[in-house]
């Protein structure tokens, strides 16, 4: 698993070009979006809408002025902070984030909600800042900014349930940030530097940082914030949310833990377990949330497989995932906007009045399922191929299983239950034009990348001559997908397929939301009982102390009694005696 060439060498090698001279005319890549966000906070609605579209374009234009090796640092309180470090990995993610911000911006045009528009722009800017952060302190800053800005997209729904969900989301992400800060401090202590580079698992810092990133990355058991919060956001908020937070985490993972073997197994677990939940989940956006964890699993796996095809696959899949998952979330958002409902049990038959949305949704579904000629195919297969190449049989089989599962729940279930299935009787209007435009662009990109993957491959951090379209591969993939679909059809026709039911399915956040409060209550009761038991038992011994304490706690009424002064005098005498004793002993020695 030796990583032959790391980004560290790439960046810190001879190609470092310190930014000065004419290049200073360029803004820090995060600034266009952040500035636009601040301006939007004060701007009238029309200007806000213009900013939503123009800011990502301006930002992307600004971004194109940078090349790998650019470095900007500043000194703050004795720390050398690397505000900007450009290499291919960061560049690709930044480009992706601008693209995502543009799509979401177009998608947001029908809305006048200042809170969401401002939060969305700032959120995208924070993500760009995070991928260009050269050291852990700057990363921490943007990491927390990501959390703080994004939570408003959840709160913007202005419902009790989403407010509480947002609070939980914020709590988790602030915790992740604090862990990152602790990790940074440990890193400083252990290595004397804050530069964020590839590290080997082993040092305390590396484990703490992995945990911090793992929370944002939805590692198993740490994943519940995603499926809790994303369905709680507004139709627009979820589109933003799906693009930035987890992808920033994938970036951080690729930067710091490339080729760490445990990630392969973590990624495998992430690809596997959510698909079961996705099958029985009713809220279609939560289904997409589970499917998102599953997709991130492929990326984590790719990062774990290491330099070359593994990381390339992970990064390329992150790129595609933002587009096709964004497309799916957009289509579900349109459904939510038009019908006010999102549960599979309440939807169906929408193709009749929302045919364009349905069609675009199916393009996204085909992409996520990795149909040949769609974008998912060209990136997911890289990870699979690398897993096979490195000889991980179990992992490969699990990923194959997950691929079939993805098609099953994201590829078929989402469009089927929303747009077809039984007729819900709902006859909503077609999605607003701006939404259809955003979805249309995303769908075009899905197909374009699927048909001409080389443009994407050229942006990847490692040189590659990977060719996804060989006959064997295409045939195998088609067989897998068609027979997955066959299973669905068969189970549906025989009525074995579980119906969509209004329900809550327990996930590990049950421990935090149910078990922990109850356990705490029991513990508090038990602890209280023990505590009082101990107190009662020690009452005799502690009589003197307790009388002092009781006197301290008593209200003012005792003033008339002379004994408080007497006690103080007694203590003065005692202290004097004690000091004399000490002095005597000290001098006697």
């Amino acid at each position, binding site marked *: 698993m030796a990583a032959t060439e790391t980004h560290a060498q790439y960046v810190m090698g001879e190609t470092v070009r310190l930014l000065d001279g004419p290049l200073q005319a360029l803004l820090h890549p995060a600034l266009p979006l952040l500035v636009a966000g601040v301006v939007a906070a004060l701007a009238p609605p029309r200007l806000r809408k213009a900013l939503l579209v123009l800011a990502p374009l301006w930002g992307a234009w600004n971004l194109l002025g940078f090349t790998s090796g650019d470095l900007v640092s500043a000194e703050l309180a004795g720390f050398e902070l690397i505000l900007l470090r450009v290499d291919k990995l960061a560049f690709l993610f930044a480009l992706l984030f601008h693209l995502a911000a543009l799509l979401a911006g177009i998608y947001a045009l029908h809305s006048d909600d200042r809170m969401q528009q401002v939060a969305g722009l700032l959120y995208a800017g924070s993500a760009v800042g995070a991928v260009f952060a050269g050291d852990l302190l700057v990363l921490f800053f943007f990491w927390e900014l990501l959390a703080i800005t994004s939570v408003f997209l959840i709160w913007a729904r202005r419902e009790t349930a989403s407010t509480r969900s947002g609070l939980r989301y914020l709590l988790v992400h602030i915790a992740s940030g604090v862990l990152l800060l602790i990790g940074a401090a440990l890193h400083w202590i252990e290595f004397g530097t804050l530069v964020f580079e590839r590290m080997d698992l082993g040092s305390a810092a590396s484990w703490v940082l992995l945990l911090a990133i793992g929370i944002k990355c939805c590692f198993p058991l740490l994943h519940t914030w995603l499926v809790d919060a994303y369905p709680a956001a507004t139709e627009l908020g979820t589109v933003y949310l799906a693009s930035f937070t987890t992808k920033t985490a994938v970036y951080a993972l690729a930067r710091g833990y490339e080729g760490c073997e445990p990630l392969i197994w973590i990624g495998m677990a992430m690809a596997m377990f959510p698909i079961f939940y996705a099958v029985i989940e009713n809220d279609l956006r939560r289904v997409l949330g589970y499917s998102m964890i599953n997709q991130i699993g492929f990326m984590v796996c790719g990062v774990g497989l290491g330099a070359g095809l593994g990381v390339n696959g992970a990064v390329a899949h992150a790129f595609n995932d933002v587009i096709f998952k964004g497309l799916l979330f957009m289509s579900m958002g349109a459904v939510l906007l038009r019908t*006010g409902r999102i549960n599979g049990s309440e939807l169906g038959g929408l193709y009749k009045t929302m045919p364009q949305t349905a069609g675009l949704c199916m393009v996204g579904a085909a992409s996520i399922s990795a149909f040949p000629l769609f974008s998912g195919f060209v990136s997911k297969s890289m990870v699979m191929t690398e897993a*096979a190449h490195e000889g991980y049989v179990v992992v490969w089989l699990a990923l194959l299983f997950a691929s079939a599962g993805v098609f099953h729940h994201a590829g078929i279930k989402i469009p089927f239950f929303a747009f077809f299935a039984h007729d819900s009787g709902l006859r909503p209007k077609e999605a607003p034009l701006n939404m259809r435009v955003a979805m249309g662009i995303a769908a075009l990109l899905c197909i374009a990348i699927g048909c001409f993957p080389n443009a994407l491959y050229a942006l990847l951090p490692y040189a590659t001559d990977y060719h996804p379209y060989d006959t064997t591969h295409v045939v195998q993939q088609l067989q897998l997908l068609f027979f997955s679909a066959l299973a669905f059809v068969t189970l549906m026709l025989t009525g074995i397929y579980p119906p969509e039911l209004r329900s809550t399915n327990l996930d590990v956040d049950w421990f935090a939301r149910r078990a922990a409060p109850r356990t705490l209550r029991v513990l508090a009761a038990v602890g209280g009982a023990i505590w009082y038991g101990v107190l009662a038992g020690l009452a005799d011994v502690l009589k003197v102390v307790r009388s002092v304490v009781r006197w301290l706690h008593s209200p003012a009424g005792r003033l008339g009694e002379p004994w408080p002064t007497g006690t103080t005098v007694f203590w003065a005498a005692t202290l004097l005696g004690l000091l004399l004793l000490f002095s005597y002993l000290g001098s006697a020695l």
Partner: protein
Amino acid sequence: MSADASSKNGDRRHLWDDPKNVQILIWVFWACCAIVFALDFAFHRHPSFEGETLPIEEMVGFYSIYGFVACVLLVLVAKQMRKVLMRSEDYYGEVLGATAGEPDGGARDEGRAPDGESREGRDGGD
């Protein structure tokens, strides 16, 4: 059965309202499956793994069978999981959409049948 609902609503019949169309689609799908399966005989495939790591992969129809079995397994296991994991919607005391206002676009006003009627057809699969 959804046809009933829509005809009650008085709007035009859509493509999949006709069971015949659905039947045609299913037949086309089965044909596709058969063709894709048959492709295994037409091509010489090169295996993903080198050497003898996973010989079963080279079996005819491996991917087809794996995909089918995986999905059936997935659904059956998930169905069992419901017995353990499923709770009422307001288990945590908070339900999304509970305090939501009217949806944008006025879907309810424009064409939606009264609740009771439209729900009758819910259990059928198209």
